[in-house]
């Protein structure tokens, strides 16, 4: 469950858990989070929570609301975001993406029972403010399997993507496809025929070689290196004088490839 830690001048004042679908923040006593300070408006802001996601919205307050130093109207809260209202700070903590989560649990699809679907999302939700949808309503959880995790192969050195589109650094967000380790830059240099001397740098995950309808092969760029695979044609690509088979063939520095009558060299750049 996500929570908010209220502080001022570095001193922690109180901790709030985001249990309700709407958590109001303001100076007036009816607010869920009451901050008794003149710099805070009577109804300053609201946090709408849909299960594990929370959204902050400024309610047209006099002095505005900021997140991580930037003034916002509406903001999709991420773990460790700091909300600023006047001199008060509210730190948003959402450990659903905690790194200590068992890998087997990542990405496990679960079913939301109809009664657990937050009312805020239904079309008739306009008057749903007084309806406190039980966010903690049972979701059928997958029972954690006690099977050992399949070991990741050594080539899977993963780096977390560090540039989310909203400009807010997202800590440990495993749900974002991670940038894989890259092999060194490599290229193909044509050695024979009309295009001799031409160099083609292998930047994409897949690079096609050959002539459609005659003979086509593809070079795949993977975390652990480059591989050549036959795609179509009666003849298979020849690497260092020997024809490869149906399987992907790992390319070594300075390998000579022969394909569709053209000779080319594969090499790593510097």
């Amino acid at each position, binding site marked *: 469950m996500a929570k908010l830690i209220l502080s001022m001048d570095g001193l922690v004042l109180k901790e709030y858990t985001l249990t309700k679908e709407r958590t109001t923040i303001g100076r007036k006593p009816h607010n869920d989070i009451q901050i008794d300070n003149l710099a805070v408006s009577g109804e300053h802001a609201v946090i709408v929570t849909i299960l594990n996601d929370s959204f902050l919205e400024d309610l047209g307050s006099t002095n505005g609301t900021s997140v991580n130093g930037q003034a916002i109207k509406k903001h999709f809260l991420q773990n460790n975001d700091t909300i600023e209202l006047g001199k008060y700070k509210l730190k948003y903590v959402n450990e659903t993406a905690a790194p200590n989560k068992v890998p087997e649990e990542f990405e496990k699809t679960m079913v939301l029972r109809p009664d657990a679907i937050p009312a805020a999302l239904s079309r008739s939700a306009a008057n749903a403010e007084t309806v406190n949808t039980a966010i903690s309503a049972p979701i059928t959880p997958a029972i954690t399997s006690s099977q*050992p995790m399949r070991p990741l192969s050594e080539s899977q050195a993963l780096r977390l993507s560090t540039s989310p589109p909203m400009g807010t650094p997202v800590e440990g967000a495993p749900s974002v496809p991670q940038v894989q380790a890259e092999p060194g830059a490599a290229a193909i240099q044509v050695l024979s025929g009309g295009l001799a001397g031409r160099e083609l740098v292998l930047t994409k995950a*897949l690079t096609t070689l050959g002539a459609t309808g005659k003979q086509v092969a593809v070079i795949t760029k993977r975390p652990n290196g480059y591989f050549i695979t036959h795609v179509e044609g009666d003849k298979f690509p020849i690497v260092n004088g020997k024809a490869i088979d149906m399987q992907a063939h790992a390319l070594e520095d300075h390998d000579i490839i022969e394909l569709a009558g053209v000779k080319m060299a594969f090499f790593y750049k510097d």
Partner: protein
Amino acid sequence: MDLGQALEIASCTDPGMVRSHNEDSVAADPANGVVVLADGMGGYNAGEVASGMATAIITTELQHAIGERPLHWVDPANGVSLAHGLLVEQIAKANGSIYQAAQTQAQYAGMGTTLVAAIFYDNRAMVAHIGDSRVYRLRGNVLEQLTKDHSLLQEQIDSGMLTAEQAKFSQNKNLVTRALGIEAFVEPEISEFDVRVGDIYLLCSDGLNDMVSDEDITMTLQTLSTNLRLAAQQLVQLANDNGGRDNISVILVKVLRDFAVHRGWRDRIFSWMK
């Protein structure tokens, strides 16, 4: 009508790099133009059981049902084509069986599965889906997602709470709002699409689209369209290279030829008179 000449089908399913079991299931009946994919969920190996039941029941039942009356025949009682009706019927059967099993066997309690099923007939594709497994179509150079996920995340996007970009950072991923086998009755979403020669259809579980960008999927299908089996393997490999955090399944259907149903002059006149 044997669609084996008109359609080329390739599939690949993989447990991924993290999971020990593969709870996805894929099945195809090329002669009848039927493809089915399911992503199971549930404790222990219940997910495997649910998805396996879904693909087996639906392919087998459709195989038996197709052939007597042409799929494009429209039932005058409800204006629904036979293909549509058959899909609804067999999906309901699968749902009933999975639900029953879940109710009667303790180790299967709560099990369910997503589903995508398609019947190709008469230059058309009738697509049914439940959950967040998807169908894409590559036509020309454009990849289009043909199904909308039945998921909490999609509902957030639909209600304007999140943009598609922000959705990547949602913690509500992988929560489906509809699944097969969870309740006594479930309503699949069914749509019909016109099919053209050259089209490539991709059915996949979220283990693919969560790990591989649309750009990479498009590039892979375009580059390897002449070797569909390699294209399917390459998609799975890409998902694994990007982390492979879930089971990955793909079914590719490439349209090689026209497969319009030959209509006699009587049929044509009657359909014109409707």
